[in-house]
């Protein structure tokens, strides 16, 4: 019972806080737009995990070691 009341109080604390925001509402809108652009557009279309094309760890190891060996000017 006590726990429930405590959670309810915390919920109301946040709810009232968000409701009474003035500048904060605009800021949250900017934050949400920014996160959407970052994760739904930039990360997906422009910043894929380069080594993500390999399914297995051993393939990633092999690829990076080949790259590191081949890029040396005269290994």
């Amino acid at each position, binding site marked *: 019972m006590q726990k429930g009341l405590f959670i309810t109080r915390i919920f109301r*604390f946040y709810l009232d806080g968000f409701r009474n925001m003035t500048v904060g509402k605009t800021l949250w809108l900017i934050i949400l737009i920014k996160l959407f*652009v970052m994760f739904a557009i930039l990360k997906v279309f422009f*910043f*894929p*995990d380069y*080594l993500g094309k390999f399914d297995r760890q051993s393939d990633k190891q092999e690829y990076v070691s080949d790259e*590191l060996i081949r*890029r040396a000017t*005269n290994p």
Partner: protein
Amino acid sequence: MIETINTSVIDWSRAQFALTAIYHWLFVPLTLGLGIVQAIMETIYYKTGNEFWKKTAQFWMKIFGINFAIGVATGLILEFEFGTNWSNYSWFVGDIFGAPLAIEGILAFFMEATFIAVMFFGWNKVSKGFHLASTWLTILGATISAFWILVANAWMQYPAGMHFNPETVRNEMASFWEVALSPVALNKFFHTVLSGWIIGGMFVVGIASWFLLKKRDVKFALESIKIGAIFGIVASVLSIWTGDGSAHQVAQRQPMKLAAMEGLYEGREGAGLVGIGLLNPAKEQYNDGKDPFLFKIEIPRMLSFFAERDMDAYVPGIANIIEGGYPQKDGTVALSAEEKIARGKQAIQALADYRSATSDSAKQQAQAALDEHFRYFGYGYLKKPSDLIPSVGLTFYAFRVMVILGGFLLLLFAAVAYLSYKNKFETKRWLQWTCFISIFLAIIAGQAGWVVAEVGRQPWAIQDILPVSAAISNLSASSVQITFFIFLALFTVLLLAELKIMINAIKKGPN
């Protein structure tokens, strides 16, 4: 087979990373600095119960919140870039880089996120003491967050506490504490956070001066200026101390960076520190015999003192570091760049041998060769010794911009504090304008510091271990160019949004 990588990919990727980091660093120092100032003001309110201080703290807290909200998550883009543009690096550093960032994300971020809600929503809803504690814990969380990020950066400047595993092609953490508490990490943390405090102090003094120029909220402005100026003096003095520590660390771990910072081509005992100077643009090679300076004013023997705590100590120049042969503090003779490149190639060959070995004995032999030369691993990617030289001009001038502006800001804080406590600042309009403009100078000083740290350590992504040419992904330059300009547009829009919201909030004032 010799694989070459398009240098324009490296340049565009570096430019993109620099753009993102510079943008990110517009918000972070203001969060760190302004957070402390607002917490001090709230502490005064807690002690005195005076509503004036509550309103004053709330005003700066609102500005803090705007800056925090616009800046939040901008650092994540740097992590995107690691995975895409710097995939070899990301794999190679393994857990060393991941661990501090994970701690930062889990511990510090959640600490900030929890208490920031109480800080903004909790006025009149929680006790004054709990609210004050939340305010301090919010800024403590932000500072701890900065610590772990700077630990990761410091490891790139001074890789310690790890062992390279040729089986996984990754560096594995051997000692968490050597990574987290390396002298470079600790010094970098304090120096960087203090630079944020200076920016925060200057921001408060500058914005409060704007109120005086507008002849409004005078009491609020004058009291804010007093706190901002004192805070700025403390931060500036401590910053001189940690800056001295930084120079000493650079001399020990990254002598080429120190030589570039000073435009020092030929080392000497009792080396002087260049106060101001103009580099000779005709000097194109480290060994062309041309004077590196058109003119310079030196403080005699001071560079030796900063570097080695001994005014007569030897400080190597760019030519010496490349040619080697000078005695080092541990009694050994410095290797030439040619020798380091040869050892680096042996290390890379040992990695190749290990990867192709079919027997345990062959692997052990390759492992032993790799361990012996691994500290020179990155040198094996350099085509010629002069590839070791960073941009001397950019490093030299950025260092002076940082130091000169830092000195100017200390004097300005001192003058403002003196006049404020003598009740004479309110009439000094020219000084108020200077303070307002100096907000931008403080930001420039902070950015210049990062230019010194990052440009000065080129060509390394990880000092001595991995140059940027080996760290980069095999991407096309055009794809990086596209994302560079997307970022430029996105960041510009966000910055304009912040400025608009922040200016509106400032114009409304504390009342």
